[in-house]
């Protein structure tokens, strides 16, 4: 470690630690589930970056959406996202969360994930290779350095609009709003 890095660590250890230790929620949607096991096993080892999958969202800090999102899965994704402790980051793999991808005209899949939960970055591809996922992780490091990976803060500030979007999609929702006016 050179002097630059040591200074960064001493100035803001929390931010540097967030970069080098991502615990990923093991929530596998869509087609990208087939690209996650090569990503975390011996050939393209993700553990050298500090990325390790954990079993529950309460212990995690990174949420990987790996493919298309149907309306049933979106309910589970919203509930899982709201259980993660802050600060948390979301990365979407594939082209389906960006604009619908291959399922752009399907009666059951949503076309843009950013309207419902905040997404920090997208990794394009159908599905991206593990090398592309690594490049995406290093881009996320840069965003965290520049303080631009603020998806969770956007969710907190604009929660009224996110909730309005979710309610426009589903009608009545089964769970109450996460942030009310008192505890924002």
């Amino acid at each position, binding site marked *: 470690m050179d002097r630059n890095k040591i200074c960064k660590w001493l100035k803001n250890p929390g931010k540097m630690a967030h970069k080098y230790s991502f615990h990923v929620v093991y929530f596998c949607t869509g087609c990208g589930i087939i690209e996650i096991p090569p990503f975390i096993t011996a050939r393209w080892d993700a553990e050298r970056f500090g990325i390790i999958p*954990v079993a529950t969202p309460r212990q995690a800090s990174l949420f990987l959406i790996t493919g298309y999102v149907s309306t049933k899965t979106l309910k589970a994704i919203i509930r899982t996202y709201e259980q993660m402790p802050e600060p948390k980051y979301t990365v979407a793999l594939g082209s389906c969360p960006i604009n619908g991808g291959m399922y752009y005209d399907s009666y059951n899949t949503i076309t843009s994930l950013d309207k419902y939960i905040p997404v920090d970055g997208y990794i394009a591809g159908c599905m991206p290779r593990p090398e592309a996922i690594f490049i995406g992780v290093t881009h996320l490091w840069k965003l965290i350095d520049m303080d631009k990976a603020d998806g969770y803060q956007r969710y907190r500030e604009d929660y009224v609009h996110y909730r309005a979007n979710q309610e426009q999609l589903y009608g009545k929702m089964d769970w109450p709003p996460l942030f009310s006016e008192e505890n924002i």
Partner: protein
Amino acid sequence: MQISEIILSSLLALIIGIFFLGLARKIMARIHWRYGPPITQPVIDIIRMFSQKGISHGSIFNFGLIFSLTGSFVVILFLPFGKMCPLSSGGLLVILYLMLLAPLGIALSSGEAANPNSSIGVSRKFLLALGYEVPLLLILLAVMTHYHTISLIEIVRIQANTGWSFGSLPLVLSGIAYFLILPAILGIRPFEISGAAQEISSGPKVEFGGKFLAFSTIQHALHEFIGISLFVNLFLGGWDLFGILEPISNTVWGIILGIIIFLIKMVIIFVIEIFINAVFPRFRIEQAMKYLWKWPTLLSFIGLLIVVLFN
């Protein structure tokens, strides 16, 4: 003098415990033919966990975790680390009682979490503790009878004069039995039953997030430290190496060399345990209980008989 010993002993145990966590992940990765995280990865993890805002489920949730962490820290004070042993009254009996505070604290906080996964994990943890306490008690009885003392410092001092107890004839079977139940005490595979990530969503830790998870990781590191340090003190001679440190035992150099030799023994035993961890799958709880109450109990019972007849 004693205050400095208390602080130094706790700090060193914390650092060594966390180093062992990192060493475990690195060695497992190398066995899998991949690179693995840096050895300081648990430190980065703990710093990150402290900077996250976890969710608390109530006051007993917080209290249980602090209770288990305190229990582990207090046991560390009773174990001789090198030549330092800050608290020494009661010796082995106190250690045996205080070792059960840690699972009790975890049970309190996971009961408050109200998650069925954590209830299953805690019940399996206690069953496993029941499983290894029986042979552990017989082994400790054998050691205490052979040396006619309950103080751990005395046991280490006698071993410095007469050789390791693992090598002395009456205590060989007890040593082998302790080595057979050591994976169960440490909580590594094949006995990684209560913290199983894939089966029960990491058991009692399922609702821990943020700083609670950091405390839980620290408690796990300390628990591993206690298991190995007890083995090294009882059977492998503690801080001495065939009596060569006896002449300089009270100088500063003696203390430092004693700590270094103690750490080398602990690292060797830990690496052997990591090799066992890499090879085995997990037992089910009934298979684990059947194993723990069969051969190790038998060996430790025969060892106790041999010690009684020998004396």
